[in-house]
């Protein structure tokens, strides 16, 4: 039996909030879909928790700084950390911004033990932290025999460091992982191993509160109750990896190595060739009924410099995931090389282009590190993702390639009083679980108080159109302090066209965020039914939504 591998996990607690916070003293929370997904330790002291609603967080801590979720910002900021760790440990895997995983055995032998290694890495990070004003950052390092154990250990280490104000690494002794995991609550599976919340809650209702309880059942019983998932649960709780690894012969060399005769410095060309390789690569493994979960992407420059990084995705790396990761790695690498060049010889004011020319790539390589049998991606007959979803997501990928990711969008519920606010448009490439019934459809039925009554207008202008609404004497309509109209609206003038007002409803006042001078809004809304007589004596009836704000009338939407 091969010796179990040891993994080390370096965790920067609440990375996205720490990066987003302008300074370390003000509490800050990162919000996604109206819920807190990350918050700084300062906010944590006020009792702000992950998963809380925005309003709840604001109630607990009134001067909290609210920042929208921005994955790219977290990534670019994390590159500095990656660079520091990479100097000590050659091959690392960046699972997500704020989380680094690497094989512990080699580095810890070199640096004299797991604890010493962890201390050394954190020492190196401290100088970086001091430079870049991320003083609020909590770092934890955990070492264990399985990914789950190391993850839990790193979290425990970070929490311990925060309370003791001194870095404490957490090392699970070799071959003790099983005993160490046993008393952990089953909730850690949801937190660190992507097991969904319903399953966790079901386990608890079944009386299986700790991993020991799950482990004590036989694997076949769990498989009988949960199917494939049951086997995974058992593997996780006894300290094995989530998926058994499969042995598949490596793909032929021409599929996973690309050599350029001429050094290439154009990023787009490199990415295109990575894409070509990634398609062949995933195709090869899918033919063998398996999927690659961990991959090494290696770039080699003309000057002989190499960039190697591991990438891991428990659901298996799809073509788009490989390309996305390669892009991240390449951008970070090129940026670091250019900055290194400029700082290395300050007299030589090397322009970016010049530096890029020096670092043309000559070789790109993909190496499969871990492969498992592909079981979880079976398309289902009912529910789950179907063939239609699969082809649709391919088409969406193709469209984003054609037009750029900002031109292909999907809607996400975010809630709001304004018709424009209630849904947010996000780029389709940033949405990971496309087509799956997300939590959004449970919330859509809830309307905000003060929102317009149904039906909603089907044409909504992002930039409202300036109009004039006049009374019978041709005077511009206004609203007094009691939100009463000065007179009945009679005519709407849009550009040079006059519309006769047949009837109207409202005015409905909205006063939003009156406590915040910068963001407060005071406006009045009015539904109008207008009639226009065209040249050939045909009347055209139009219902619109007019808004009066700052003394100006605009048309925000049309009931088309």
């Amino acid at each position: 039996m091969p010796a179990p591998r040891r993994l080390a996990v370096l965790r920067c607690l609440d990375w996205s909030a720490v990066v987003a916070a302008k300074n370390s003293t003000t509490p800050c929370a990162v919000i996604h879909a109206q819920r807190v997904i990350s918050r700084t330790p300062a906010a944590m002291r006020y009792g702000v928790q992950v998963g809380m609603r925005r309003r709840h967080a604001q109630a607990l801590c009134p001067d909290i700084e609210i920042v929208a979720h921005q994955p790219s910002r977290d990534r670019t900021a994390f590159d500095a950390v990656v660079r520091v760790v990479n100097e000590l440990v050659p091959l690392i895997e960046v699972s997500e911004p704020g989380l680094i995983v690497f094989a512990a055995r080699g580095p810890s032998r070199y640096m004299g033990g797991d604890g010493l290694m962890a201390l050394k890495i954190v020492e190196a990070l401290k100088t970086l932290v001091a430079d870049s004003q991320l003083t609020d950052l909590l770092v934890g390092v955990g070492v264990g025999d399985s990914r789950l154990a190391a993850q839990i250990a790193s979290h425990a280490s970070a929490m311990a460091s925060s309370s003791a104000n001194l870095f404490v690494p957490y090392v699970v002794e070799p071959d003790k992982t099983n005993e160490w995991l046993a008393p952990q609550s089953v909730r850690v599976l949801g937190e660190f191993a992507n097991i969904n919340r319903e399953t966790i809650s079901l386990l608890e209702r079944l009386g299986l509160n700790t991993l020991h309880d799950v482990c004590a059942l036989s694997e076949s019983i769990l498989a009988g109750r949960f199917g494939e998932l049951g086997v995974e649960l058992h593997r996780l709780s006894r300290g094995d990896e989530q998926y058994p690894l499969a042995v598949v012969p490596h793909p032929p060399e021409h599929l996973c190595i690309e050599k350029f005769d001429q050094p290439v410095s154009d990023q787009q060309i490199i990415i295109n060739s990575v894409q070509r390789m990634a398609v062949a690569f995933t195709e090869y493994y899918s033919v063998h009924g398996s999927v690659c979960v961990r991959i090494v992407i290696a770039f080699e420059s003309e000057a002989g410099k190499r960039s190697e990084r591991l990438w891991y995705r428990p659901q298996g790396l799809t073509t788009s995931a490989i390309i996305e990761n390669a892009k991240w790695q390449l951008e970070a690498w090129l940026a670091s090389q250019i900055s290194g060049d400029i700082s290395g010889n300050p007299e030589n004011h090397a322009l970016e282009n010049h530096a890029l020319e020096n670092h043309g790539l000559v070789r790109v390589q993909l190496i499969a590190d871990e492969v498992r049998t592909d079981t979880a991606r079976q398309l289902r007959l009912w529910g789950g993702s179907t063939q239609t979803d699969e082809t649709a997501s391919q088409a969406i990928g193709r469209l984003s390639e054609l037009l750029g990711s900002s031109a292909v969008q999907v809607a996400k519920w975010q809630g709001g009083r304004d018709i424009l606010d209630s849904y947010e448009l996000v780029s389709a490439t940033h949405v990971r679980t496309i087509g799956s019934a997300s939590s959004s459809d449970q919330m859509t039925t809830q309307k905000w108080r003060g929102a317009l009554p149904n039906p909603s207008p089907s044409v909504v202008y992002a930039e409202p159109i300036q109009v004039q609404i006049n009374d019978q004497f041709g005077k511009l309509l206004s609203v007094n302090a009691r939100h009463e109209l000065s007179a009945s609206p009679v005519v709407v003038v849009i550009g040079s066209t006059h519309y006769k007002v047949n009837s109207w409803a409202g005015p409905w006042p909205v006063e939003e965020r009156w406590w915040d001078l910068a963001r407060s809004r005071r406006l009045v809304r009015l539904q109008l039914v207008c009639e226009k007589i065209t040249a050939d004596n045909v009347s055209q009836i139009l219902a619109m939504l007019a808004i009066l704000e700052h003394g100006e009338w605009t048309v925000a939407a049309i009931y088309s």
Partner: protein
Amino acid sequence: MQLDTKQRLTELSIKELLATQQLDTKPQVVERLAVADDVRELLPDSGLVRGRIVRCSGDAGLSLALSLCSLATQQGSWLGVVGVEHLGLLAAVEHGVALERTVLVHPPKTSREWSITVAAAIEGLDLLIVAVPERLSVNDARRVQTRLQSRRAVMIIVENTVLSQSRSMNGSNEAQQFLADVVLDTKTKSWSGVDRGAGYLQHRDVRIRVSGRRVARERNYLVTRSC
């Protein structure tokens, strides 16, 4: 005598052949996407037949297009909204469109790029709501239509409502690049629910004229729609 039997045999076989052919053609299976009850009677095949083009014009065109799509998206089809500006997403939800299977695409307005985008969308999506740019060439339109027929998708054409420009309001007079199979021309007759400051917009009476090359006889409907 021999010739006679032979002749009879051939006659018989021809008759049989005809009969079987008729049997084949009679239950003629048209693949279609389901539509909600309130709009089913408007369509000639009581559903959106795959590979065809429907045009929704007039001042209630967009909301009619959305309600045509609602049931199909709920049943798992994907909807692409291509080049339609200012779509009210809340209205789409109220019509029953499943937003988790809806993609909004904003292509450039040039003829070639627009048609390439639509062709790419047709590859993977069952349903499209598109707004056709003015300068689309007839050749590109024909290519898109051929692709649509071979990939068995449904395309619904709407107009981008532009206020203050009276020219595009009566856009139906313009030359149309796509020859629609079904044309649903809408015209709002009256709105109800508002009364000089009281109430709110609730229903409207819409006159819908159904025509097009797949429609045997032009028909007019007067329907009350909740939006």
